[in-house]
């Protein structure tokens, strides 16, 4: 079975600073996709970034980037120049090939302090 582990339940960061959210996963598959989703308080789940397992290059979307370590089965999210609007719950998720089912981690609550 595939599992996604987010071991940090909460983190806090000062505005304009950089923060890294950790995620590890476990699978025996070779073809899979990894995602980070953001869920602001009482608001909609938003896709932040996607990484294909076959790509060695780490994905980047503006202030968001990932550190994908396939051998270590690690997929961390780095948020640069943190903004107050980044305050949210962040979920790491995993999908095997065309299976299309997302397996989510427990999530981490990120608070950005002014």
């Amino acid at each position: 079975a595939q599992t996604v582990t987010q071991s940090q339940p909460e983190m806090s960061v000062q505005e304009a600073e950089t923060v890294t959210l950790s995620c590890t996963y476990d699978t025996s598959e070779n073809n899979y996709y990894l995602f980070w989703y953001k869920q602001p308080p009482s608001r909609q789940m938003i896709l932040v970034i996607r990484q294909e397992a076959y790509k060695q290059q780490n994905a980047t979307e503006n202030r968001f980037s990932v550190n994908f370590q396939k051998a270590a089965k690690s997929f961390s999210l780095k948020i640069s120049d943190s903004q107050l609007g980044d305050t949210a719950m962040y979920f790491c998720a995993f999908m095997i090939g065309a299976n299309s089912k997302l397996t989510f981690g427990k999530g981490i609550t990120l608070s950005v302090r002014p």
Partner: protein
Amino acid sequence: SAVISQKPSRDICQRGTSLTIQCQVDSQVTMMFWYRQQPGQSLTLIATANQGSEATYESGFVIDKFPISRPNLTFSTLTVSNMSPEDSSIYLCSVLTGVFYEQYFGPGTRLTVT
């Protein structure tokens, strides 16, 4: 991406009754999903709804309790039947886009059963 709407956005229901949640997407999609999320918790997949076939339910979820319809490529409904307070949760639909295997989520329906 995809724009997804859900109705109702929230409801308070009495135990023993049923509620049907609607999910509408602005483009044709093959795969739609229904999730349940306790506030502040992670998402649990209820079922996968493909147009033209029966929904596929995850372990712990049964069709009699959560019947799903998928009449076309832009619409689906989830019914929560014979509700109990344990069914109080947020119910989300999501759709899979074919190009990059990305899932996009609706805003959710917050259900409270009294």
